[in-house]
C-alpha cells in the first residue's frame, strides 16, 4: 500500500508548489515516544486539600487520557488512529499539535523535539503542521469572513508578502477546495456543513504544510458529503505530498483512506498494522471485536463478537492489560503485566500477551 502511494507521488515531486526535498521512502516524519497525558480532576491547590483522619492531606485525581503511546508517522502516509470515545485518540492529535502539553514522553518532528517548545520556537513548525477539526460549525470564527479567515495564517507566516500576493494565494486555495473565490466576503454561517469543512481544509492548506492532523474531519457530515470531503483530502494529499494523522472512529473510512492503522483502547495503542493486513487479519482481540461491530450492508444478521461490560473509566486504570476486563482470552498474566507492542510476522505490531504467547492467532 505505502509503496504504491509513494510510487504514485514520485513524479509529482517536481511540482513547483513545494521546494522540499523528496524524502526517502519509509522514514519517520513524526515520532511519538512514551507519550502520556493526565488531566487533573481535583481543581486548584486549595480544592485538593482534604481533611482525612485528623490531618490535612493533598489529594489529586487524574484522568489518564493517554498513557504510554508510541507511534511513528512516515512521510507521505496516512496513519489512521481508531478507537472508541475516551480512548485518547483526540488527545494524541491535540498533544501532537501543541494544543496540550504532554505529561511525559517525547514528540519529535523531522528529528527535532517539539514538545515543550514555547510558542515562538514552535512558529516554524506551525507552518509545516496544520490541523483540521471535527465540527465545521465551530471551527470557523463566526465574526470573520472567509477571506479574513484564510488571509490570517498567510499573513502570519509570510509577513513579507504583498497584499496582492496574499489575496492571490487565498483565491488559489479556495478554488483548490472547490469554493468559488468570489464568496470570500461571506461569513461561515452562510455555508453548508460540507462547504465549511472545505474552507477549514483550505485554511490548513493556505500555509503549504507538509503534515496535517485531521481530527474526525468527516464524522459531523452527512454520508454524501463525507465522500466529497474524503475525496478532497486524498486529492490534496496527492497534490501537496501531505502526510496525514487521521483520527476517526469509523473503520469503513479507515479501510478506504489509511495507509496504516493504529487501534487505541483506553489511552494505549493495542495494534498498529498496514491497513490491508489489519483488515485481513486483525490480531488483537479488541481489534477483532471492533471490526465485527461495523454495520455492513451485505449481511442480514449482525454476527458481531460481544464484549463483556463497558469501557472502564480512565480515572482508575485497570492493572495489566487495559483490555483484560472485557477480553474473552484474558488470563492471570494479562491482569498483572502491561503488554508492550511486539512486531508480528506480517509487518504490524500488537500489544497482547495472548498473541505473544501464541495462545491467539
Amino acid at each position, binding site marked *: *500500500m505505502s509503496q*504504491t*502511494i509513494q510510487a504514485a507521488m514520485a513524479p509529482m515531486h517536481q511540482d513547483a508548489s513545494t521546494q522540499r526535498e523528496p524524502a526517502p521512502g519509509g522514514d519517520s516524519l513524526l515520532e511519538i515516544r512514551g507519550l502520556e497525558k493526565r488531566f487533573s480532576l481535583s481543581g486548584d491547590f486549595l480544592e485538593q486539600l482534604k481533611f482525612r483522619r485528623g490531618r490535612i492531606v493533598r489529594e489529586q485525581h487524574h484522568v489518564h487520557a493517554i498513557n504510554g503511546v508510541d507511534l511513528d508517522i512516515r512521510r507521505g502516509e496516512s496513519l489512521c488512529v481508531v478507537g*472508541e*470515545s475516551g480512548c485518547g485518540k483526540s488527545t494524541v492529535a491535540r498533544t501532537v499539535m501543541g494544543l496540550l502539553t504532554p505529561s511525559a514522553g517525547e514528540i519529535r518532528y523531522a528529528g527535532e523535539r517539539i514538545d515543550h517548545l514555547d510558542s515562538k520556537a514552535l512558529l516554524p513548525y506551525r507552518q509545516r503542521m496544520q490541523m483540521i477539526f471535527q465540527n465545521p460549525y465551530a471551527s470557523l470564527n463566526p465574526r470573520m469572513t472567509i477571506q479574513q479567515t484564510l488571509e490570517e495564517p498567510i499573513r502570519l507566516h509570510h509577513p513579507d508578502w504583498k497584499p496582492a500576493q496574499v489575496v492571490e494565494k487565498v483565491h488559489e486555495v479556495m478554488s483548490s477546495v472547490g469554493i468559488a473565490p468570489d464568496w470570500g466576503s461571506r461569513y461561515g454561517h452562510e455555508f*453548508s*456543513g*460540507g*462547504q465549511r469543512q472545505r474552507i477549514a481544509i483550505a485554511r490548513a492548506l493556505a500555509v503549504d504544510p507538509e503534515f496535517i492532523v485531521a481530527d474526525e474531519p468527516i464524522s459531523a457530515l*452527512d*454520508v*454524501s*458529503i*463525507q*465522500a*466529497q470531503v*474524503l*475525496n478532497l483530502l*486524498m486529492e490534496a494529499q496527492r497534490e501537496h505530498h501531505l502526510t496525514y494523522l487521521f483520527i476517526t*472512529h469509523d*473503520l*469503513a*473510512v479507515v*479501510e*478506504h*483512506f489509511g495507509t496504516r492503522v493504529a487501534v487505541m483502547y483506553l489511552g494505549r495503542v493495542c495494534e498498529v498494522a498496514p*491497513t*490491508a493486513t489489519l483488515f485481513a487479519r486483525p490480531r488483537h482481540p479488541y481489534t477483532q*471485536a*471492533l471490526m*465485527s*461491530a*461495523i*454495520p*455492513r*450492508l451485505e*449481511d*442480514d*444478521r*449482525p454476527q*458481531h463478537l*460481544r*464484549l463483556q461490560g*463497558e*469501557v472502564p473509566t480512565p480515572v482508575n486504570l485497570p492493572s495489566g492489560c487495559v483490555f483484560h476486563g472485557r477480553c474473552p482470552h484474558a488470563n492471570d498474566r494479562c491482569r498483572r503485566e502491561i503488554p508492550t507492542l511486539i512486531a508480528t510476522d506480517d509487518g504490524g505490531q500488537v500489544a497482547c500477551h495472548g498473541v505473544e504467547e501464541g495462545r491467539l492467532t
Partner: protein
Amino acid sequence: MALLDVNHLDVRFALRQGDVKALRDVCFSLDRGERLGIVGESGAGKSVAAFSLLNLIAKPGYIAGGSITFDGLELTGLSDRQLRKVRGHRISMIFQDPMMTLNPVLSIGEQMVECLKAHRRISSREARAISLRKLEQVQIPSPEKRLDQYPHELSGGMRQRIIIAIALLLDPDIIIADEPTTALDVTIQAEIMALLLELCEKHNVGLILITHDLGVVSQVTQRMLVMYAGRVIEQGPTREIINDPQHPYTQGLINALPQMATPGERLNQIRGSMPSLSQLPSGCPFHPRCDFATRQDGSERSRCKTEVPAFVSSGNCQVACHMVAEMQDAERIEVREENS
C-alpha cells in the same frame, strides 16, 4: 389493513419568511410486528416524520394535511388528552439522547413506576415488579440495583438500555426509534441494535427506525423508506433497495460509502448538498444534484425540473423518479412491439 397507515402527510413550519414545507405527501404503512427503516441525511425530514406521528412536532410546526391512522383510529385530529392514551402506551419512542427521556432527579425505578401508574391502575409494588422484569429483558447486569440508581450514575450504553426498557414498559405495538445509537460507540451500538432487534421479534413489536446509517438499516429492518428534502423518494423491501437501488439518490448514497470503493481510489460522491427546505428546487427536489437530470446525451431533461415525479412500481419497490418511469415505458413499448 395495516396497523399504522400514513397517507399524504404534509407538515409545515410557520416561520417569519413564510411556511416551510418540512414534509410533503408522505405515505407509508406498517404492519403488526414489522420493522421499517426511514433513511435520509440531515434535513431530509425523517425525524419530523417520526415526531408528527404522535403529533410531537414543536411549534411553529404543524400538520397541514393528510391522515395518520393507527389501528383504525385517526390520530391527526385528536386532542392532546386523547393522544396521550396512544403516546407512550401503544406507540413509544426512543430518542438519540437518553437524557431527553430520563429525568435526572428521579431514580430509574421511580420513573418506570410513575410511567406505569400513569397508564394502568396498579399498585407500586406491582409496577416495580414489572419494571424489574423489563430491565431483565434488556439484559442489564444487576437490574435490582439499577432501579434505585440515578441516570447520571449509568454509562451511555446502559442508559440507552434503560430507555428501551421504558419503551417496552407498557407492551406497545410500535416503537419509534430516532437515531437510537448515533451517540454511542461502535461496539455498544452493535449490542444495542442487536438487543432492539431481538426484543421486537420476540414480542412482535413493530419498529420504525430512523437513521442515517444504511448499514444499521440493512441489518435491522425489513422494509425501508428513503427520504430526500421532505419527500419519500423510494420505498420497498430493505434487501431489494440495498442490493438494487433504483432512485439516483439512493444509488448515490450507497455508492458513496467507503466500503463500496476500492481502497485509496476516489469515492463516488454526489455533488452539491441537500437543499434547505425554504429554497427547494422546482420539480424533482434532487434534480440539481442528479446526473440523470442534467446529463443525458448532452441535453437537459426539462421534465425533472418542472414536474414532481409520481411513484412508479419497480419490483416490490416504489420509486419517485422520471428516469425509472421512462425506462419502464420504453420497455413496455418494446414488449408491445415484440408481441405485435
